[in-house]
Structure formats: C-alpha cells, structure tokens
C-alpha cells in the first residue's frame, strides 16, 4: 500500500487558521447561528480581474489551494480533487432568485456559470493553467472523504505523485436560513453554528521528513450505533491497531441527537483515550471534516491541542496517531486514521 503524505495543509475557517500561528482557537458562541469565515486578503492571491466574478467559496478555495501549493513548493499538481456538498450556493441562490424576480427573463450569465459545484476546482486549474485530472465530488457530508479516497486510489495506481485535495463550503444567504429554521425548531437539532470554509492539502505518495501520513479512510452510508462499534473494531484491526493504541480520537459532535453515535464509541471502545471535538470551533457544514483533518494534522505537527477541542482526558506526548470519526444525521459515517 502506497503512502499518502500531507506535504502541506491550509485552512480558511471561522478561526484565524489561515496563517495558523497562534493555534489558540476559541469556541464559537452557541448564540451565533452562522459562523462566517475569517477571510485572508484575497488580493494577495487572486488578480482583481479574476476575483470580481468569484463568490465567497471560490475565493476561499482558490486562495487555500494556492497557499497549499506554495507551502509544498509545488507549481503543478498531477491532479486537483475537490469536495463540496453545496457547491457555489451563493450564485445558485442569486441565479434562481433572478429567475423568479424577472419572470424567467433578463437572466445574466455570470451567476449561472459560477453556480456549478465544480467551479472551485475549475478556477484553481484555470489560475494554474493546469490541464491535469480534475474532479469534484458532491456526496453530501462525504464529499471531502470521497475526494481523499480518489486521491489515494490515484497514488495506488501510480497515476499521480502530488495531488491537490480540498473541501469547500460557503454559507450562502438564504438556503442556510431554511435549514437553520428546521434545526432550531427542534431541541434535538444541531447546536453548533452553521459554518463555512475551505481546507486544502497537497498530498504526495513520496514521504517527507516529519510529514503526516493518511493511513486509511473508510466511509459507510448507513449504520446503527452498534454497527459503528463493530466496523470501527475491524477498521482498527485492518490497520494493526487496537483502541488502546490510538493516541487521540476526534469526534464530529454538533450537539444534535445523533451525537449518540459519538457518545456510544466514547463510552465503550475509547473510554480511556484522549477525546477531542472540532465543530464547536468551526461550525457545521458538509465538508467540515476537511477542517477536522487540518486540525488533526496540525496537532500531530505541533504536538499541541487547543483546549477548546478537549472533551475528555488529557493527552500524553508524543502524539503519534489520531483517529477521526464523523457522521451527519446518523448517515455518511467516515473513519480517517493519520499518523506521524
């Protein structure tokens, strides 16, 4: 099995993560319903002529991707793979509202052109003049994981050596309000704010000193809480691990009733392990697991854990491996195992 090494990781999120200097991330206020990203200066990365047609998600994705390439000292990747659950929802809303407002007349081309899910991947490629393999996965809350699996398969088949992989989501202006209305109407709904962001990684089949390796990823569409325990045991066994040998587990808790999936694992297999969470600092969105992977990578690199992420049990150095488990509404489960 070929390695899948993270040569660089960049994230634009609700935290000051783009430069990631302080690593002192704060818990988002639960009273805030939408957590917008902290935006870097996009003019440093995108020419004005190009940026004027870009919506928030495209700017975040292109900038995070460019920065990731810079940090990895890579000019041209062998593939660009993007994951996005909602795509460019901002322009989709603009275009659809314009259809209604103008009675299906006077439709302008820009929001329509930019409203597709693969706009981010395409704009990254256009900016780089990169004609390599370019794919966007739109699989709800498994969009980013699907992109990662595709990258690992390309490495396995010797189709690529360096791949740019990322997950992007923008809040938009309207659709998110309907989702929020549904979530807040029930006391079992999502409690963390809805968020947005872009996290990009340069992955390589070539090892690099100190680079974090993505050992394994598994996705499961539907599973009961007990199924997840069994599937996790098999996943660990396939990677020659037992739960005791996992240095930290990062759960995707968002405060809704489906957190029982995490609680079940936490109180059985991983009771003695360092337990972490990240959606309390990033907010919830379809490709938030990319931010989870960014944080896990930084934790292994820095050997530090932001206190806002700790759920239970302190940690012991050295942290050598981290397991991530995420699900959304009891569906689209994913396990990711990384190590340094």
């Amino acid at each position, binding site marked *: 099995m070929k390695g899948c090494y993270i040569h660089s990781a960049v994230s634009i999120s609700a935290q000051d993560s783009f430069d990631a200097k302080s690593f002192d991330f704060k818990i988002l206020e639960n009273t805030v319903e939408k957590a917008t990203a902290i935006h870097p200066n996009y003019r440093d990365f995108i020419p004005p002529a190009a940026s004027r*047609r870009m919506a928030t998600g495209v700017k975040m994705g292109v900038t995070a991707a460019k920065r990731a390439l810079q940090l990895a000292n890579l000019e041209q990747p062998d593939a660009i793979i993007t994951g996005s659950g909602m795509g460019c929802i901002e322009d989709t809303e603009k275009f659809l509202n314009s259809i209604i407002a103008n009675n299906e007349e006077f439709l302008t081309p820009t929001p329509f052109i930019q409203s597709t899910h693969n706009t981010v991947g395409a704009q990254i490629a256009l900016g780089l003049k990169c004609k390599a393999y370019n794919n966007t996965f739109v699989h709800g809350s498994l969009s980013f994981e699907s992109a990662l699996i595709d990258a690992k398969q390309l490495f396995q088949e010797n189709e690529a050596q360096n791949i740019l992989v990322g997950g992007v989501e923008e809040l938009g202006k309207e659709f998110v309000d309907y989702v929020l209305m549904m979530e807040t109407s029930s006391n079992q709904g999502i409690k963390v704010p809805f968020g947005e962001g872009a996290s990009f990684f340069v992955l390589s089949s070539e090892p690099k000193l100190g680079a974090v390796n993505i050992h394994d990823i598994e996705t499961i569409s539907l599973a009961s809480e007990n199924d997840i325990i069994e599937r996790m045991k098999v996943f660990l066994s396939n990677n020659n691990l037992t739960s005791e040998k996992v240095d930290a587990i990062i759960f995707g808790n968002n405060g809704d009733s489906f957190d029982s999936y995490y609680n079940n694992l936490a109180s059985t297999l991983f009771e003695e392990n360092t337990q972490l969470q990240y959606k309390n600092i990033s907010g919830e969105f379809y490709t938030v697991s990319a931010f989870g992977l960014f944080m896990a990578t930084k934790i292994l690199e820095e050997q530090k854990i932001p206190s806002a992420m700790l759920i239970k049990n302190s940690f012991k150095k050295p942290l050598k491996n981290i397991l991530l488990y995420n699900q959304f509404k009891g569906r689209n489960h994913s396990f990711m195992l990384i190590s340094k």
Partner: protein
Amino acid sequence: MNELKLELKEKIIEQLNLEEFTVTDIDDDDALFGDGLGLDSIDALELIVMLDKDYGIQLTDPKEGKEVFQSITVLANYIAEHRTK
C-alpha cells in the same frame, strides 16, 4: 445626458463587480472593452441584458453591439435615442 452617463457608470460598476473602480475612474470616452476598462465577452452579455431590462432595448445584431459598447458616451447616446422605458 450627464445624468444618464453617471447612471450607466454606476450600473456597470455594480453589475460587473468592478471592485477596483469608482465612477470618477471611468472617463466618458474610455473604451469599455480591450485596453480601456478591460471588459470581456461575458460582460458584453451582462450589458445586453441590462439594456433590455432597464431601457427596453433589444440588441440582436452582434455588430451593432460592438458599436454601441464603444464607450459611455456612445452607449448613452444610443440609449437616449432608442429607449422604450
């Protein structure tokens, strides 16, 4: 006429997201395409829709568009002559 020119400049900046420009940056006789404002073919489509929606002018001949969109002055004159709303 000056009011119409100012209105056109404001609409062009807003609808084409010309973030770097203010109305004072656009001279009445600046070329809208090419070396002037640097607009492109997608912008041309946006301008055609704007003429139809805001002034009731339908441009159907591409050659006509090339002449009409030369500059703010030419565009304002054309609108003043042909507008239906």
